[in-house]
């Protein structure tokens, strides 16, 4: 696909900023001010990720309390009320305040750099989106103080993260805790939609010269797919939240079963959001894997067009599977069969992805630095998560497994084993670019192995009480049901994971001050973000880069054997 009209490869070399920057560091207030008013995609991206990491710790503490409570039968560590608040807040936090902001942060920081742009398409919308998300999270946590109204002691939402109607009706959920849940998700949803619009506009309109859609780094491709899914999935949730508020305050009866409303309708609205949400969260994990695995295997991604097609395919199919969360609500047999089939079909493009990653590693020279370790664990764990997903799609078996700890184990395998592992690997990979320093490799490996051990202790064994009939969202259980030992192991594993996450956070912190200086391209990588300095200057590139293939830096480093000859 050599195009003679384009400048020869190597032009990107001129994109690197070599002017020395000797700006005096500002006072604390000046620095703070510069972060609060910033519209720079990199600063916003960093803020998104830090915000997500803070909520990872908060949601993690909630999880630990939950696990202490469940470690023994008939435990009294948490009261039923507090337990119910904690699992509701844990779920809501991890999905909306940790998962989504984290991935939006990644997209924000990386997409413009990867496509050779100087910023996002709408920098001010970008800042607005971040602050909406941030306020949504703060408002949700304010409920601990203000949930019962300012005069009473506060309480947080306690209706579960999917908040099934009519438990959310005023008859069953008095006070304001449910309102905090509703409004904060509404607010942060607006932020997420803003971010999605921005990513799509950026990728479609801001690519540098020579970067056709088929030369787009897969990370950017998957960011577009994620953003498209966000645009389709968040509005139903927002609509449902508005209807719920109308029910609660204006006498509406959408979900108010006491007055003829429909509890099923909430479920449909919620899961039409909720299932694509899973893919919104997992696509960025795929995106990271698509960048990291090739670089550390020293080979280009295997089957680039198939990877794009599979991602788009997963996105489409994922819009038609939501009722697999509702196999037990009494759908007709045909309905159940339909959703079983559509869910199984997701397995096909997903399988293609796994095979392509495998083929990328095949014949390579794989360097197992920390980012690649995380990716390897991601591959095994995602495989396992996918297979338990297939089990859950078998509707009759789902009648047994639904709402049991098996499901809890399955989706934590996806959310932690696949997504969190991939994102942590991603943080390790791009940390040198963002800070200009390398992470401590020894600490990183310790953290990784600790996390692997903790993760498998917790979530492998969590499947078993599910198979033994333990339902989710119960604050305690009686002894003698065969669940005790498994729960104890699971709880211990949770603490091992907590230690690993703390070690990871500690590594991020000390390496910022003491880490080895990274240089522009510490991994010998191939996409444009590595063509500028670390950290990149505000304007990213001095001159607009020009690319002629999917791996512009490969072309630059191997002028004798450039990629564009083969694409």
């Amino acid at each position, binding site marked *: 696909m050599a195009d003679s009209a384009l400048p020869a490869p190597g032009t990107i070399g001129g994109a690197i900023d070599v002017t020395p920057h000797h700006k005096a560091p500002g006072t604390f207030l000046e620095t703070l001010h510069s972060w609060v008013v910033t519209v720079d995609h990199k600063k916003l991206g960093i803020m998104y990720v830090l915000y997500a990491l803070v909520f990872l710790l908060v949601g993690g503490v909630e999880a630990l309390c939950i696990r202490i409570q469940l470690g023994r039968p008939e435990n009294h560590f948490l009261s*039923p*009320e507090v337990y*119910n608040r904690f699992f509701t807040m844990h779920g809501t936090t991890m999905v909306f305040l940790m998962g989504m902001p984290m991935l939006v942060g990644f997209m924000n920081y990386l997409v413009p750099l990867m496509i050779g742009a100087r910023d996002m398409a709408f920098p001010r919308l970008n800042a607005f989106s971040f602050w909406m998300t941030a306020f949504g999270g703060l408002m949700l946590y304010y409920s601990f103080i203000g949930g019962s109204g300012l005069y009473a002691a506060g309480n947080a939402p306690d209706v*579960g993260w999917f908040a*099934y109607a009519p*438990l959310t009706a005023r008859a*069953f959920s008095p006070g304001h805790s449910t309102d905090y849940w509703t409004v904060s998700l509404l607010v942060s949803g607006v932020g997420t939609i803003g971010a999605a619009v921005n990513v799509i506009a950026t990728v479609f309109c801001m690519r540098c010269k020579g970067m056709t859609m088929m030369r787009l780094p897969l990370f950017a491709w998957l960011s577009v797919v994620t953003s498209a899914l966000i645009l389709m999935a968040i509005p139903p949730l927002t609509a449902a939240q508005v209807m719920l508020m109308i029910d609660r305050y204006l006498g509406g009866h959408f979900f108010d*079963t006491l007055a003829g*409303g*429909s*509890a*099923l309708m909430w479920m449909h609205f919620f899961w039409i959001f909720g299932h694509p949400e899973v893919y919104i969260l997992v696509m960025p994990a795929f995106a990271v894997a698509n960048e990291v695995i090739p670089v550390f*295997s*020293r*080979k*280009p991604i*295997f*089957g*680039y*067009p198939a990877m794009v097609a599979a991602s788009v395919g997963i996105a489409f199919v994922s819009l038609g599977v939501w009722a697999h969360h509702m196999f*037990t*609500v*009494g759908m007709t*047999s045909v309905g159940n*069969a339909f959703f*079983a*089939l559509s869910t*199984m079909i997701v*397995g*096909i493009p997903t*399988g*293609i992805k*796994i*095979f*392509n990653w495998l083929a990328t*590693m095949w*014949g390579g*020279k*794989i360097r*197992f630095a920390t980012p690649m370790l995380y990716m*390897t664990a991601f*591959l095994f764990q995602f*495989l396992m998560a996918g*297979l338990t997903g*297939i089990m859950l799609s*078998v509707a*009759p*078996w789902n*009648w*047994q497994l*639904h*709402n049991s700890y098996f499901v809890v184990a399955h989706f934590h395998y996806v959310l932690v084993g696949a997504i969190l592992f991939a994102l942590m690997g991603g943080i390790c990979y791009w940390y040198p670019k963002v800070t200009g320093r390398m992470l401590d490799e020894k600490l990183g490996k310790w953290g990784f192995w600790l996390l692997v051990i903790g993760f498998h202790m917790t979530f492998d064994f969590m499947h078993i009480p599910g198979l033994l*009939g333990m*339902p989710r*969202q*119960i*604050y*305690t259980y009686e002894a003698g*049901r065969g669940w005790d030992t498994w729960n104890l192991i699971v709880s211990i594993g949770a603490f091992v994971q907590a230690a690993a996450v703390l070690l990871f956070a500690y590594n991020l912190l000390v390496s910022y001050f003491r880490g080895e200086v990274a240089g522009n391209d510490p991994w010998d990588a191939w996409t444009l973000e590595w063509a500028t300095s670390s950290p990149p200057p505000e304007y990213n590139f001095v001159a607009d880069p020009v690319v002629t293939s999917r791996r512009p830096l490969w072309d630059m480093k191997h002028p004798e054997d450039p990629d564009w000859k*083969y694409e």
Partner: protein
Amino acid sequence: MNADRSTSRRSYLCRTLVLLAATFAAHAAFAEGPQSTPSIFAPAGTPAASIFDLSLFVIAITGGIFVVVAGLLTYAIVRYRHKKGDEKSEPAQVYGSTQIELAWTVVPVLIVVVLFLTTARLIFAIQDAPRPKKTLDVTVIGHQFWWEFHYPKLGIVTANELHIPVSSNQQPQAVFLKLYSADVDHSFWVPQLAGKTDLIPNNENVMWMDAKHPGLYVGQCAQFCGVEHAKMLLRVYADTPEEFAAWVKNQQQAAVVDPQVEAGRELFARQSCMNCHTIKGTPATGHYGPDLTHLMSRETIAAGAAPNTPAAMKEWIRDPDSVKPGALMPAMHLTDGQIDQLVAYLETLH
């Protein structure tokens, strides 16, 4: 509606194949008679057993996929890891291969076809099972945080502990449940007998089950329904035909009238107990709480939160929150003397 026995040969094969499942399967296969466990791998009813067979088949397939893919991954990691001297050159750059990619698309497609067909078969077999002539109908109403059972044809109302006749090959006996909710969503789940079905307000659901061995089957509410969701336990007793007939006969009677506990009976009617509870044959006709007419025929109280003993009963009436925090029965602030009288009365309700 009978479990398709043609699957048993296949499931036997799976049993030998799948180590993990085999442990559980052995658990089921060697269980002498019923065991009171909520394990889905110890089925004792037709729907649960056919689901169990299907699950073994699915475990075999997914287990096979795992072994193959994880094996290839492991091989790649070991074989292609970076070795000394590797830094001198880059490996061969391969961009893809349409043939290979087509091949590994076709295999998953075939697996999906097989899985879907077996799944669909069982969905229809269970959900659209023709209704046999001899069935028992029960209406289940979910409440925050207890179960109400009606036997419309038998004129029985009871709570939390469901009695059904056992099903044998000579006398197949299916139980058809109609499921409703009085307040929020709940889910009826007794894993050894059948999968779960939700109880949704303003909505009617149906499910059926049978029990192959006499005995107790435990389960619990499987849809979060509020503060005491964890203590909304469920007990199903499969009785022999004789036991069941005797149970029915007793339940159909009005409440026992024992003059010795007259004081307690009066107290029950004077306190607001009667606004919430029914005791057949007395003025108490409340519907908010469980029917107490034959309270002593139950082994537990408050949906399994406590055993049905005089001591637990006293504690429950003195302060329901201390037994089941958040339960919807209020503490009535009665004196110890009053509570003794009440419990003495309740203890006669056989």
